[in-house]
């Protein structure tokens, strides 16, 4: 039973992540942010979740939050090229 619940939770989180990604690809960054914030609160967020959150924040010009998110990606996954590129671009202007 617990196993089933935990699988359902994982599926729900995956659905939410895909939904956030869908919003980003449709340039609805604020909508993506709402979902990603929830995901970051509830799950042991993956580098990919923080990466998407960084993208969405960058998309709304919340550059401070975007930098924090990309730094978090690099803490969790130091070789994440995309996060490196975005962070460099945001810092160098």
């Amino acid at each position, binding site marked *: 039973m617990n196993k089933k619940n935990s699988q359902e939770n994982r599926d729900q989180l995956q659905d939410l992540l895909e939904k956030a990604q869908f919003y980003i*690809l449709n340039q609805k960054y604020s909508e993506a942010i709402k979902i990603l914030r929830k995901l970051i609160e509830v799950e042991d967020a993956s580098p990919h979740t923080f990466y998407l959150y960084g993208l969405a924040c960058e998309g709304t010009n919340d550059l401070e939050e975007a930098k924090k998110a990309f730094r978090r990606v690099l803490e969790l996954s130091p070789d994440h090229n995309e996060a490196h590129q975005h962070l460099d671009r945001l810092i160098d202007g």
Partner: protein
Amino acid sequence: MPKIFAVIGLGTFGSAVAMELARRGYEVFACDRDPEKIEEIGGELANAVELDATDEKALRDAGLDEVDTALVSFGEPIADSLLVTMLLKEIGVREVVVKVTDDRHSRLVKRIGADRVIYPERDMSSKLVESLLSPNIFDVIEFSGDYSLVEMAAPKKMLGKKLADLHLRKRFGVNVIAIKSKVAVVNKKGMPDIEERVNIAPGPDDEIAEGDILVVLGRDKEIRKLKKI
């Protein structure tokens, strides 16, 4: 014929300018009297020359009389900056750009022939203050008088509206000369990503989207009003 440049003084600023010109494919003479600086940049630039630029003969021998534009990028000592500026004009450099350290330096160097004076620290500090005070302002270029070209995040009230419907020229006397948009893409690895695209001279039917940065030209006072909407 592509322009030929010279950069005299290879501190942080001068080196950066010389490297950027070379990166863009221009011929650059990079000069400094310090052999260590020449060694540092020599690997990157073909024409890195150790010379004392206050010596007219040395300037001619190095071929600096052939350059179109020279940047005097060392600020101090001011006496040397003045002398080098004067010599560069005398040997026939068409345009001499001088980096200055203060207003007095600027006044003097203009009198003896500088075609253009730059003040990177002051220019940078005013941009920095603007961006610190207005987080939604990304860049400012001052024009003459009270006019500036400003990059600003599109205010929320504008989102989803067409430029024509915003009546910005009528209401604020400003022109939107470009819109930088954050366009979502899928990169080669199949991951979502964001790219910046620039719409130069947007038309009346162009719509403002979330994340857009407007490049606005107008009077400072009116731009300040626009930021508040």
